[in-house]
């Protein structure tokens, strides 16, 4: 093997380091944005839940008080219908939260593997004039990144997106 081969192999390994570093930086930004989205969602849903809770508690208490009075109880029906509709859609925050959790887990796992791949490139090569050493290093980094891609879905179960099945009922 020539010195030229060693230089090419070293440049290829450097390119891999650049790609892994850039990808890791972009994923760090994504992780941060996911965390901010989740915080905003939590803040908004906390406010909505407080308002919903206030209305729900009052209607349930009023219904109990109006048990003996059918006419008054009937008046609460339409209010309850509105709260039921709100209830159905307030559940979305919970599902979106689960989706974000699943995405965060995927991003974190990929970042972990990219950092592991970058750590393989840290120690100096003992014989920089030998292309085999650079090739071996590049292969180890690629194996690490590929393993990260293959493991990305493990344990990251977001709610399924099958809208047709949402709200469905099966009695056995």
């Amino acid at each position: 093997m020539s010195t030229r081969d060693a230089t090419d192999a070293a440049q290829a390994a450097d390119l891999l380091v650049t790609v892994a570093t850039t990808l890791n930086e972009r994923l760090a930004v994504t992780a941060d944005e996911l965390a901010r989205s989740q915080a905003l969602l939590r803040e908004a849903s906390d406010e909505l839940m407080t308002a919903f809770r206030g209305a729900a508690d009052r209607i349930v208490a009023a219904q109990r008080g109006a048990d003996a009075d059918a006419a008054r109880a009937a008046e609460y029906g339409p209010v309850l219908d509105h709260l039921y509709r709100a209830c159905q859609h307030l559940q979305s925050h919970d599902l979106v939260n689960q989706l974000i959790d699943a995405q965060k887990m995927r991003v974190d796992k990929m970042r972990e593997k990219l950092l592991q791949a970058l750590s393989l490139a840290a120690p100096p090569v003992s014989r920089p004039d030998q292309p085999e050493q650079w090739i071996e290093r590049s292969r180890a980094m690629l194996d690490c990144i590929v393993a990260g891609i293959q493991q990305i879905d493990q344990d990251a179960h977001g709610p399924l997106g099958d809208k047709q099945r949402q709200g469905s009922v099966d009695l056995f």
Partner: protein
Amino acid sequence: MKTILAVDDSATMREMVTFVLESAGYRVIEAEDGAQGLDRATATNVDLVITDQNMPNMDGLTLVRSLRELRDYKSVPILLLTTESSDSMKAQGRAAGATGWLVKPFDPATLLEVVQKVLR
């Protein structure tokens, strides 16, 4: 008054289920996961259990199996209320002894219909 145990690790979901059931005149006991649900069910006999599937400590299917081993819960209806909607998961639920499977997000009116039906 019928008593229903609602098991879910999401406080929002528990609150939604409790509101809908209480508005229809049921008494509701809440639990945050399967393990706590099992404790609550053994401490108080309930008429119906509604449980989520994916929860820490003990999942919904394990809770169903554990309850079915108890003499008092051989025939008490148990509903899974979960985001899981695959046929294989439903088959596991059926094999574990669940009475029914509802996919989130639930429609309050449908939930009440199902509850009335299984409590009949």
